[in-house]
């Protein structure tokens, strides 16, 4: 069997890069938030230190097999999502498995992790975790609908469900889908706010209220794995949005710029807004984002 070394390279390095970028973004967020709030904040590499610390801790207890596997589900979903997204356009190394999946697959694999986590959190028996899961799932229903509407509009407009085809369409910046289908972008980016889980949609983990909810019984290696997964997943989502709306990237510099801009949207929104209650956020997602979604589809149809 002939081994495709460039593919192997991609498989090995994509998660690593994703992790590093994601974790750095996380650190930068803390920093930026602090600066806006007139604090100094930790250094941008603080999150990496945190994760290293967590991995080096010994975790002596667990609450059973589902709790044990919860973070594993999470990281499986993050990494799989990442593998099915072309990170760098037309690159033999970083397209990974993106030709074997499509947008609908991505939609589903993206929730795989949160569901797995939810199962893990459920087994711990902590009522706060259960409350968090309840809120998280409810909110999920809220933002998935406008997101899917945006995707449907785009899929219909370009007659494809494959990300690679979408990338191929956006060969010039005037043809970026953000310009071709602005309503879809609006719907999707509002949904994106919910997906990222920053304020005002952070009722799921609400640290001061339900003791950070689902992850509250996780520590040490489990929490480390979860944070790793989260960093990778953040990056994956950013790349996905970049690929869909901003024409993807031919090199890492462009990718970093585009993803960072995208990333700042939920971060900055989060700094300005207070927290929504669950039903408020659901209602929010089913108002303007939904409207934009419908508009996007109508524009495509007529």
């Amino acid at each position, binding site marked *: 069997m002939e081994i495709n070394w460039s593919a192997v390279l991609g498989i090995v390095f994509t998660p690593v890069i994703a992790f590093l970028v994601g974790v750095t973004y996380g650190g930068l967020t803390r920093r930026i938030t602090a600066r806006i709030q007139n604090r100094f904040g930790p250094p941008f590499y603080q999150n990496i230190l945190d994760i290293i610390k967590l*991995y080096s801790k*010994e975790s002596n*207890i667990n609450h*059973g*097999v*589902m709790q044990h596997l919860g*973070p*594993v589900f999470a*990281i*499986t979903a993050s990494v*799989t999502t990442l593998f*099915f997204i072309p990170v760098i356009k037309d690159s033999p190394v970083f397209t990974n498995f993106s030709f*074997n*999946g*499509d947008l*609908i*697959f991505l939609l*589903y*694999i993206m*929730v*795989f992790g949160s*569901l797995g986590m*939810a*199962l893990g959190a*459920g*087994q*711990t*028996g*902590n*009522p*706060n975790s*259960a409350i968090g*899961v*309840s809120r998280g*799932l409810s909110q*999920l*229903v809220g933002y*998935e*609908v406008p997101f*899917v*509407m945006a995707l*449907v*509009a785009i899929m219909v407009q370009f*007659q*494809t*469900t*494959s990300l690679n085809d979408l990338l191929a369409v956006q060969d010039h910046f005037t043809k970026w889908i953000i310009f071709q289908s602005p309503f879809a972008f609006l719907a999707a980016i509002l949904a994106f706010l919910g997906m990222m889980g920053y304020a005002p949609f952070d009722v799921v983990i609400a640290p001061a209220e339900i*003791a950070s909810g689902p992850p509250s*019984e996780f520590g*040490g*290696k*489990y929490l480390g794995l979860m944070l790793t997964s989260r960093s990778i997943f953040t990056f994956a989502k950013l790349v996905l949005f970049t690929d869909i709306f901003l024409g993807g990237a031919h090199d890492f510099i462009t990718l970093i710029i585009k993803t960072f801009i995208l990333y700042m949207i939920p971060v900055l929104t989060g700094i300005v807004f207070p927290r929504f*209650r*669950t039903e408020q956020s*659901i*209602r929010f997602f*089913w108002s303007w984002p939904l409207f934009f*979604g419908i508009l996007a*589809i109508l524009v495509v*149809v007529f």
Partner: protein
Amino acid sequence: MNSIAYILLITFAGAGITFIVHHLIKPLRDIIAITVAASGLYFVIQSLTEKTKIVFGIADFNIIWGNTPYSNLFAVLIAVLGFLTILYARDFMAEKERLGYFYMNLLFVIGGMYGIVYSQDLISLFFFWEVMTWSSFLLVIYCCKEAQPIGLKYFVFSAIGAYSLLIAIVMIYAQTGNLELSNILQNFGNISEVNQIVIAVLLLTGFGVKSAIMPLHVWAPDSYSISPSPFTALFSGALSKMGIFGIGMVLFKFASHSGYFSYVKIILAWLGGITALLATFYAIFQTDAKKLLAYSSIGQLGYIIIGLAVGTPLSIAAALFLVILHGAFKAMLFMSVGAVYFRTGTTDMNSVTGLIRKMPLSFVTMLFGIITVSGVPPLGGFAAKWMLYESLIQSKHYFLVIVVFAASTAAFLYLYKLIFSLFLGQEEVEWSHVKEVPLLMLIPMLILSAFVLVAGIFPGLVLDPISHAMQYLGNYGFKYETSVLFNEWGNKINMQTVINVIGAVFLIAGLFVTFKGLKKTRYVTTKDIHTSGEIPEENENLTYAVDFYKPFERAIAPALKASIDKIYTAIGNNLEQAFDFLRYVYTGNGQTYAMYVVLFLSLLILFAELIFGIKL
């Protein structure tokens, strides 16, 4: 004699024999029932390779039984589920009363379903349809006094369905003079357009009742939840598919000629969509596990109906794939909930919690079940959902796909609630005595779990028979490979890659988590958690299960206000009162009766011209 004759004969005779044996030699009863179901399965598999036809006359009609690729698909579903449920019932029902009655009706239901799929004429179709209806009714009312009104509701709705079938059959007979399927299919186009539509709508209504399309679904939640679990598995898994079977026949074999028919299809598709969405919402707020699953069933059948009504090759494939898959996973879920019931005596999600360590295999079954329902890769549900979405988008049902997607996302909510409340969460002292169910109950659950896994990785294996069935339905072809699915735009999804990636990452991460500090890790109870310094007592209930989705309920409350069930109940009550009023026509007074006679005489004489056309 050929396989089909054997199947029907063995099942129906077996039903009777089981009943008799129950009253003579009790221990033999289970063995006979299982043997009957097993031989049914054997002959169904035999019949797959042969193409047979039995013709004989009853009354003035030619009764024709035969198999087509389409019926084979359903027959296998019936046979497998029938066999597994009877296997499961062996231990589940062991302590119950009236087992002769139970097994007899269970086998009658199975036989009725075989009959329906093998019927090649409408008389025997209706015959078996009714047999299935009353035997399932008898099973619904099996348990207790509380089940009686529920069973009656089921029967009334079934009767409405069956009779709209009958009206359609009667109309077909009046129009074509024949009730053989082959003949009708040839001549259906010659019937006037209006009648075609009326017949098709009547048939769809009739079949729709069994597959619980809104607004004909109201019988389903209660009937599913009150019937004994082994039967519920069959009820939801196979019996509801008989409606789908019929709808498929109507949509693709009968009424493909008329131009107006596309409107019927669109309406049907949207009914399916609304069914899926509302049923899912209702499911979220149930507190009884079986009721939750019942609503879930209604929702899933909604997807199937959408798939059929949309009618592109991919959507039909998705629908038929879901038929098989739903049969499997809903049976798994009902069996798993049944297992919980078997050990705890309740299916109330607010009271049972934390069974995972006591019933690990039942948990695994339910886990596989909910993953399949949710449509998350890598299990079979994903392939079905994928095909459905792709086909909806590509056939320009943009808003329908949103509705479907919203429904299946909302499904996560109830699925999580189901598994969380029963198996996860706090381990309460109350359930410390619970242990895993007997082997005979586990086997069916595990077989089905294995099946949904295989169907997820190699959907092509299931799609093979489905594509044959679709050939029969009208030459629908679509592209697929053993583990690769294609949509109509040529995009594909490779399940093999998906499972490899997921498997590899899962394995690596799993091994890492497991072996890092393996020796020091110990299990602690669910009381030993972060509670802000409070130390919970042994008997303190920390479970968060009641009103689990209160915020979501607040968000969508307006959508749930209207209840079709209440409307029906009101209609029913008013009718009964009206009937009661009418009863007083018969006053019990002889003079009144005499007056009626005289009045009638005078009316006849007065209106003789009007009535008889002759002036007196």
